[in-house]
């Protein structure tokens, strides 16, 4: 290619065609633009595009067939220790890692389509992989068939907006040790787990859709050791477990809708000071389960479709507190095998008895202000 001959800040326009090339190194600031998505085929040999300069625009290519390596993280497009780049409008097919950012800041990844055919977690890579980055914008990408759709490790102050992450083996989006990040308006569908947020602080999660993450070990959203996050305006539908929280503190879970999930929430006893308010719980098999008889979280003003109380003063808030943990879901937490008795009449009876006079389920876990009607969001 023409990179060697180009001066810094030149524009290179590549005409349509198929180029079998790999280990392309972009070592000066260039605008590289493909017309009608020229194909760069790595022939499963090695890495394809490596950006080793600041201020590169890489736009409009089809990058395909990256080699598979167990030692090196070969990627379709990699930015290594450089800043201020834009990767836009590309198609990445069958790339081991799709777009790989390493110690790079202020980068925009927009409108890319990434598709791979990951068969198992061991020999597959992530769609968009970020390691030690800051101020990254990931917008309107579509990622499918990787191990993790988007992977964040030590990434600060970045935003993930309106992406679609679908059919990835492990997680749709995965945070590790990443703080002050936002993800807004994304759709996570049919992944092993929609989103996993681990060991991270101050994550804003807003207006996302978590759909069809269904299977024996699948979750919509997985929290592990996260603090001070906000989860609002999201929709959870048809997930085996919509939210699973382990050791997570001070999270605001507000204005979300949980519909037709197996478990809407599984909050472990080591979670505290979380606020769960103004959510709608509709048609879930279990609304809430926990493994502790103490409650250290605050539940209020939620709508629970199984609430059977009354509202005499007509203020829209039920006069009797609601206990979202049913005896059976508590028992399953203790003895998983007991699930074989799901929907048995005996279980219905003891659930009823427990509802009238709670003995085993957490006494203090209750919604003091259950809503009579659905919470309406704008």
């Amino acid at each position, binding site marked *: 290619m023409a990179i060697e001959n180009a001066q810094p800040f030149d524009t290179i326009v590549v005409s349509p065609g198929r180029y079998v090339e790999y280990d392309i190194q972009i070592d000066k600031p260039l605008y590289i633009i493909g017309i009608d998505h020229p194909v760069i085929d790595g022939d499963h040999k090695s890495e394809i595009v490596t950006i080793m300069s600041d201020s590169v625009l890489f736009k409009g290519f089809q990058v395909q067939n990256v080699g598979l390596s167990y030692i090196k993280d070969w990627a379709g497009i990699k930015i290594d220790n450089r800043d201020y780049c834009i990767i836009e409008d590309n198609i990445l097919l069958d790339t081991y890692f799709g777009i790989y950012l390493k110690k790079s800041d202020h980068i925009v990844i927009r409108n890319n389509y990434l598709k791979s055919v990951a068969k198992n977690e061991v020999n597959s890579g992530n769609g968009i992989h970020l390691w030690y980055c800051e101020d990254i914008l990931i917008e309107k990408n579509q990622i499918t068939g990787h191990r993790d759709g988007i992977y964040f490790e030590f990434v600060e102050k970045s935003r993930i907006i309106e992406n679609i992450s679908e059919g990835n083996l492990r997680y749709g989006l995965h945070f590790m040790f990443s703080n002050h990040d936002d993800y807004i308006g994304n759709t996570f569908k049919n992944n092993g787990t929609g989103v996993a947020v681990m060991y991270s602080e101050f994550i804003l999660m807003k207006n996302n859709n978590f759909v069809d993450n269904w299977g*024996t070990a699948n979750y919509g959203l997985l929290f592990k050791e996260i603090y001070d996050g906000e989860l609002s305006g999201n929709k959870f539908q048809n997930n085996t477990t919509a939210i699973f929280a382990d050791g997570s503190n001070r999270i605001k879970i507000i204005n979300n809708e949980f519909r037709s999930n197996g478990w809407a929430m599984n909050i472990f006893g080591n979670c505290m000071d979380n606020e769960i308010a103004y959510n709608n719980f509709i048609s879930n098999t279990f609304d809430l389960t926990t493994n502790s008889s103490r409650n250290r979280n605050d539940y209020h003003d939620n709508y629970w479709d199984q609430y059977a109380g009354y509202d005499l003063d007509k203020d829209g808030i039920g006069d009797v507190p609601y206990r979202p943990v049913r005896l059976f879901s508590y028992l399953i937490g*203790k003895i998983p095998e*007991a*699930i*074989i008795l799901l929907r048995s*009449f*005996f279980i219905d009876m003891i659930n009823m008895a427990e509802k009238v006079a709670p003995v085993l389920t957490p006494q203090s876990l209750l919604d003091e202000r259950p809503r009579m009607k659905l919470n309406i969001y704008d």
Partner: protein
Amino acid sequence: MLKILKYSFFDLIRSRWSIIYFLFYFITGMVLLYLSHDVSKAIVSLMNITFILTPLIGTIFGVMNFYNSREFIELLLAQPVPRKRIFLGMFLGISISLSLSLLLGMSLPFIIYGLFLSGQVMSLLILITSGVFLTFIFTALAFYIALVNENRLKGFGMAILVWLFMAFIYDGIFLLSLFLLQEYPIEKFAIAMSLFNPIDLSRILIMLKLDISALMGYTGAVFSKFFGNNSGMLISFLALTIWTVVPVLLILKKSFKKDF
């Protein structure tokens, strides 16, 4: 035997109760479908009703029918007809007429609603099949109890007790034993336990068909591996068949010895 079966069958099918029984399922099915607009939800709700009601109706009808037609049985016994045919004919007469009400009452609403478009044909089929099995099993049990007990009150009480045990108490013991044995790997034990109660067995078969299996997590994987594959299915239906055949054999054995 066919004559007796026919007589008993038409006697029952003409009776009010069969029609009420049919109408009950028909109306319930309709209401559930048109309220929920979701075939698989309607099947789950109908399952809850079916598995408590079919055994109960089978039990009550079995006992009542036997005691009410005692004179008729005595009359038949005076004729040169083998005992086997009399009792088998009467038993089949009741169970088939009840099953017919169940079959029609349950399938018609779904067919009207458009079952074949929903892709849930298999789960409804399992629901109806297990409902029919339960009818046969509990009618046979009731018949046997009535045959053993001359005293109507005692017989009735015992039959209801058997139903109560299977529908409620067994699950309590089940849960308690799971609780006590939770230190051990108990998945296989749980599968074995469920084979010993036809109501539990039918319930689990449907739950696994309705994609609720994923809810069961890791342990569910063990269950659905057993009940989900063909050999597990076969074993389950074999267990249901044994549950039907054994009480019938008991009826026959008792009927040979019984002194009327």
